[in-house]
């Protein structure tokens, strides 16, 4: 069966799998080069030790831990959109869920590798399993990230099954792969029912797991005695920050693919409007948490805390701190609350600012506390080396490459959910509305 002859009404969603332009190969080659350079730098680090980085005493954690927290944070894109919107039966989620779930899968892999890159002895990683201490927040971290990765991979795979079945039925390349992965899905009533139940179970499970992941990551910092870290706000603060950066990353990915693959009919202005509003809400929430944390620190005025506080506000790290506030608060609020600026390019600008700002936020959390030890040792200086910068570039390249590989195998927009939406959503939503609205009023007879 020649796949060009069967034209589905959603043909444009299938096209990226079957057609590959020259731009794809050029970009893939460039990204692969960046990625391989990162791998080479890492091998160099394995040979010479962590001394090839900019880390030292007292700043014993740097780019690797910052990127670790950052990438795991972005994984909340998948949970928020996919799980929470599905749970709240929001119909506008349909073209977005697939990309969101893929983001989660890829960044969890990249982010999860970063603590291993940061280890002085990665060859001894099995010690964590053989002699692990559950009292250590790093073990809680390992547990929750593994649970989240498992759950979100299954949560990506289940709604992918009907789409794989569609691809299998079209014939063409990778047919063997699709046949195996589609698990014999034929779209029968019983299969649809089972699939929907499975998705529903996971959709509810994924939310507490996701919240636990970023809470536990924040507890790596807040369980220590370091000034600037030992604060109870870290749990909720990191979750809010994660959802914030996740939405921004999702918007960027959506706009990129919309442009490249001409998904304009599926990813409409209204989708970006809604996501833009969510981004604005998260920005305000982020600002609220940040303000609360620093006001408390400042008002209490404890000397070790103030040393870290002033380092961030007026000292060596002030350019990064105020840039972070600008990127995370000023730019989103300006662009997203103003109707004239809330265009798709405007929303893109706000999202890019947020992604940069959230990476800076992790920098502001990790380095200043370490650079200002409690005892009057000299303030630490951290200058990232080429190794760390190239590994950050390699991580970003891996993220984009992961998406590119995915786009060649599976549809980036959930085709069957779009079809279901087209056929059944109007009816489902009207029925739902009738449940909310009061019944037809009786005509009151006027008593004369």
């Amino acid at each position, binding site marked *: 069966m020649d796949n060009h002859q069967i034209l589905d009404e959603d043909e444009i969603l299938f096209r990226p799998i079957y057609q590959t332009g020259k731009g794809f190969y050029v970009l893939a080659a460039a990204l692969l080069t960046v990625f391989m350079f990162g791998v080479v730098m890492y091998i160099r680090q394995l040979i010479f030790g962590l001394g090839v980085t900019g880390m030292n005493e007292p700043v014993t954690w740097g780019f690797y831990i910052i990127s670790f927290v950052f990438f795991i944070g972005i994984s909340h894109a998948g949970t928020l959109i996919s799980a929470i919107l599905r749970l709240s039966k929001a119909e506008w989620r349909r073209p977005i869920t697939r990309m969101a779930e893929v983001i989660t899968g890829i960044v969890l892999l990249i982010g999860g590798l970063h603590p291993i890159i940061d280890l002085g002895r990665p060859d*001894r990683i099995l010690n964590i399993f053989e002699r692990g201490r559950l009292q250590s*927040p790093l073990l809680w971290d390992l547990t929750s990230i593994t649970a989240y990765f498992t759950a979100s991979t299954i949560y990506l795979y289940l709604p992918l099954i009907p789409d794989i079945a569609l691809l299998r039925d079209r014939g063409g390349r990778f047919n063997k792969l699709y046949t195996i992965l589609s698990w014999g899905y034929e779209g029968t009533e019983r299969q649809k029912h089972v699939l929907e139940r499975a998705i529903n179970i996971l959709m509810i499970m994924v939310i507490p797991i996701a919240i636990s992941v970023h809470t536990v990551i924040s507890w790596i910092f807040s369980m*220590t005695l370091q000034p600037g870290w030992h604060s109870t706000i870290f749990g909720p603060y990191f979750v809010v920050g994660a959802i914030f950066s996740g939405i921004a990353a999702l918007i960027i990915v959506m706009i990129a693919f919309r442009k490249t693959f001409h998904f304009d009919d599926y990813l409409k202005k209204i989708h970006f409007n809604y996501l833009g509003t969510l981004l604005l809400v998260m920005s305000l929430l982020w600002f609220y948490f940040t303000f609360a944390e620093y006001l408390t620190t400042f008002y209490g005025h404890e000397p070790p805390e103030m040393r870290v506080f002033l380092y961030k506000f007026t000292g060596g790290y002030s350019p990064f701190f105020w840039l972070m506030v600008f990127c995370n608060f000023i730019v989103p609020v300006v662009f997203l609350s103003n109707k004239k600026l809330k265009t798709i390019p405007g929303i893109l600008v706000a999202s890019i600012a947020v992604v940069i700002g959230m990476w800076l936020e992790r920098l502001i959390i990790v380095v200043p506390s370490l650079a200002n030890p409690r005892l009057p040792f000299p303030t630490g200086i951290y200058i990232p080396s080429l190794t760390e910068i190239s590994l950050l570039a390699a991580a970003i390249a891996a993220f984009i490459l992961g998406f590119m590989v995915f786009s060649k195998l599976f549809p980036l927009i959930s085709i069957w959910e779009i079809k279901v939406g087209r056929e059944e959503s109007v009816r489902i939503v009207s029925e739902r509305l009738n449940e909310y609205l009061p019944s037809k009023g009786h005509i009151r007879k006027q008593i004369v």
Partner: protein
Amino acid sequence: MPKYGMVIDLNKCTQCEACITACKLENNVQIVSKENAALGRAMFWMKLLDSNFEGAYPDIRPTKIPMLCLQCDEPPCTKVCPVRATYKRDDGIVAQIYPQCIGCRYCMANCPYSAKTFNWLKDEQQIENEKCYNTDVSVRPKGVVEKCTFCIHRLQAAREKAKSEHRKLQESDYIPACAEVCAAHAIYFGDLDDPHSQVFKLINDYRKFTLQEELGTKPKVYYLSAKAE
């Protein structure tokens, strides 16, 4: 079970740094190259901490405190280690298991005294240094955290000697390198639970203080200092 502790008399300490040198030689601590030391990677198990500056320029007299691992009774570092590469022994010494450390540096992040140090890389050592390595102490590979262990290898040697001589371990059998070498006799070491030991008497001295007591780490290195009136 003895509880080993240390008392450092700051009124006797001349800041000659003999203790720092002895510690480094006794424990095969790496001599880091100049470039790496400038980057903040010098490795010292015992350091001098600037605690006070007396007088005005140009006659400033810094008071420095010899700082080593304070061997806390409630160590924050052992709490967070994911693989039990650092742990507190029954005799009170907080020990390191170098082959078990995965180099995550979480213990370093949680130590409020910045007492731990990390092998960021292995610099080329002078052959003369390598020739006089202490054979009782392992040379740590890169990627592993290390810190003062109250010269625990000396304790092990002393225990074995006492056992082979069929007698009990005495106070004079075991002394860390820093305490042994101090020319001003400012460093006292012994069993804090033994009412006959010198350290037991000194920790009841009115001049006694510990660093950052309010954190509840219960350090077992005490300092004695009285300001000259």
